[in-house]
């Protein structure tokens, strides 16, 4: 199967028939919360927002280049004033639309109009109410989030929960699985805490260690099996030996389609931040690998990036893979965190 996988651009794992080629949009870092683990330092005082016309122009270009999904994050997306216009446009030209939200601002008529253009919304949850409120730094945050979940339930909008796993929360994962399933979630995404942004200042004592990675990996697979019939449980961790066998799961350079010279074949995700900067792979990726800026781009942007920067970027992928595969001390890895670190060091 491994040999066969490499010949198919659409497949990136033994059980995944197709893949999103996503543009992760951070249209604003403005947020009604200032969560302790926020990797983008989002907070109420931020005012920068993406220009909607420039964003639409870029989305049209990227769609022609093979990207098929937008994942809106932030900041809190519902605080982006042009969100409705942006999502309407994205749907019109054919994108699938997903969004990550804290779920606290869904009760307005505007929010309900916006939800009509969203295929799947992931609500962030940090554990049972006391832990959620602590991480969200706001008493009552859990209750307000649940009011948003009720709106989603009433409108039969497909939704999921996204949870950042910490040493404080891993023992609540069984509770979380049951909570998500009972509330009708279609997705439960488990993401390990990363020491970026505000977490690197406020949660240093909660850094992920090897023991926690194993605990999370085992429990997530248990939950995946337990809820196989009702929701998808996604875990953002991989076993070293799995990566060794299926490097194409994390690196398009291990797929034959890398030779197609399409940016959307090379990178499953590109990121646009609130300043318009476009980066590959993940938020916080090394500046030297910036693709460009949506406020000033031409239609050779991706082609030029491939010619000028992809050769050195390929080395970053190879080096990261090499380090993971040869580090026998660490079995379970967060690929995104490691490659971001490598890109910054390059």
């Amino acid at each position, binding site marked *: 199967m491994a040999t066969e996988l490499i010949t198919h651009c659409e497949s990136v794992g*033994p059980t995944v028939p197709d893949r999103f080629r996503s543009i992760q949009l951070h249209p604003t870092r403005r947020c009604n919360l200032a969560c302790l683990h926020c990797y983008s330092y989002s907070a109420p005082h931020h005012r920068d927002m993406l220009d909607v016309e420039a964003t639409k122009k870029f989305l049209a270009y990227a769609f022609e280049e093979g990207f098929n999904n937008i994942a809106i994050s932030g900041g809190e997306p519902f605080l982006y004033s042009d969100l409705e216009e942006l999502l309407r446009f994205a749907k019109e030209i054919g994108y699938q639309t997903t969004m990550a939200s804290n779920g606290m601002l869904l009760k307005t008529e505007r929010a309900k109009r916006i939800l009509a253009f969203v295929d799947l919304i992931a609500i962030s949850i940090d554990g049972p109410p006391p832990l959620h409120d602590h991480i969200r730094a706001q008493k009552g945050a859990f209750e307000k989030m649940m009011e948003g979940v009720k709106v989603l339930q009433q409108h039969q909008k497909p939704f999921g929960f996204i949870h950042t796993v910490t040493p404080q929360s891993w*023992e609540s994962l*069984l509770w979380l699985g049951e909570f998500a399933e009972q509330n009708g979630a279609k997705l439960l995404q488990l993401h390990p805490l990363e020491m970026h942004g505000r977490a690197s200042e406020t949660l240093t004592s909660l850094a992920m260690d090897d023991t926690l990675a194993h*605990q999370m990996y*085992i429990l997530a697979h248990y939950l*995946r*099996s337990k809820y196989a019939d009702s929701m998808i449980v996604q875990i953002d961790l991989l076993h070293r030996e799995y990566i060794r*066998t299926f490097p194409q799961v994390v690196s398009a350079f291990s797929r034959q389609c890398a030779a197609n010279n399409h940016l959307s074949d090379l990178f499953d995700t590109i990121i646009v931040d609130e300043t318009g900067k476009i980066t590959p792979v993940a938020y916080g990726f090394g500046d030297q690998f910036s693709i460009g800026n949506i406020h000033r781009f031409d239609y050779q942007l991706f082609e030029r990036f491939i010619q000028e920067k992809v050769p050195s970027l390929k080395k970053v992928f190879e080096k990261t893979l090499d380090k993971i595969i040869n580090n026998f001390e660490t*079995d*379970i890895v967060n690929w995104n965190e490691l490659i971001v670190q490598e890109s910054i060091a390059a």
Partner: protein
Amino acid sequence: MADSKEFEAALMAKLAHGAFDKTFLKTTSAAIMELRKQGLVIDDIFIKGKPRFDRIIINGKPDPEFFGKMKDILVRPKFSRFEVFPYGILNPETLKVQVTFGL
């Protein structure tokens, strides 16, 4: 449900003890990974054995190529039992695999 709660309580206790028993964590993660890698769609993981809950049992459905890779799976010394149900029928759609490792 009662069985499920019992399994979960035992699993959590075992995992919570993981910092002191790294071998358990490493072998369990490796077993899950190995079976996923070979195309087994895992639909049940639980632990058995008293008094120390010393066995991990993984149930799953194989993909069509799974049995072609049996020899890769069986060389893993951690797997103490490998059973296919029902016996003697070679249509992967109808089979379930149960792997036990530990004592």
